[in-house]
């Protein structure tokens, strides 16, 4: 397995479509978080693990994909939805499992936190002169203590989310976001992004 090269599973035609891939296989592949579930092999014995390893914030990949799929069209709106601050993605206590999970995967997990926020910063910079295109919604506080497997804490997740949504600045951003989706301004051509830069960035 190579955690450094993200693979996109598409429900639409593209040059790289995984023909014959089933919905459950794609769902299973993107859930294969190391230490939680074993990896999955799809098609020609290709091995997949959860993209959280190298690509927890896929905003740049999405832009690159949009450029390929809609080269002549303008971009209306990009919404990035986070799952809380980075500590949320807890892999549990190292020790026994660390012997099983390759050390490069452990290192990659540690890098997720910085990666997510760094990508967000890059996107802010990229859209700095084009307001109301890029939005990121992310419950910043309270999710840190909740692990992926703690299904009994769903009420806490809901409470933290409601609190986040009540914040004045979040409420205002949501109103702009809804406007942007309902009546996209289509301000920027895809080519205007200097996508060559991205190709370099994507290699985590």
């Amino acid at each position: 397995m190579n955690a450094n090269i993200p693979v996109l599973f598409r429900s639409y035609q593209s040059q790289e479509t995984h023909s014959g891939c089933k919905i459950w296989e794609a769902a299973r592949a993107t859930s294969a978080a190391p230490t939680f579930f074993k990896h999955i092999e799809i098609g020609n014995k290709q091995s997949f693990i959860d993209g959280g390893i190298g690509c927890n914030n896929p905003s740049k990949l999405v832009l690159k994909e949009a450029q390929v799929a809609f080269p002549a069209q303008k971009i209306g709106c990009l919404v990035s939805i986070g799952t809380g601050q980075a500590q949320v993605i807890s892999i549990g206590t190292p020790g026994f499992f660390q012997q099983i999970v390759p050390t490069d995967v452990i290192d990659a997990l540690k890098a997720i936190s910085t990666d997510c926020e760094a990508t967000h910063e890059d996107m802010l910079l990229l859209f700095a002169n084009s307001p109301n295109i890029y939005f990121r919604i992310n419950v910043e506080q309270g999710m840190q203590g909740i692990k992926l497997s703690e299904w009994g804490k769903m009420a806490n997740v809901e409470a933290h989310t409601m609190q986040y949504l009540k914040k004045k600045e979040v409420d205002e951003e949501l109103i702009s976001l809804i406007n942007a989706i309902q009546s996209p301004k289509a301000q920027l051509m895809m080519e205007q992004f200097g996508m060559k830069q991205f190709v370099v960035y994507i290699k985590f």
Partner: protein
Amino acid sequence: MDVDTAINAYNNLVQRVFSDPKQWPGDGRFKATKLEEVIKSVVRNVTGDPEELLLEVSNASICRT
């Protein structure tokens, strides 16, 4: 799937998958077979076929051939 249905499906999935860890954790602490079973039941509920392909054949909005 609307949002409420999706949230309910997720709640059901995490409960069924994470309440039943492996007795002998090897490659992962939870049973991938259990996860597959629950995912397939969601796909069956929504599409009618648990083995439904990911690729949508008649997607006029994006197919550019």
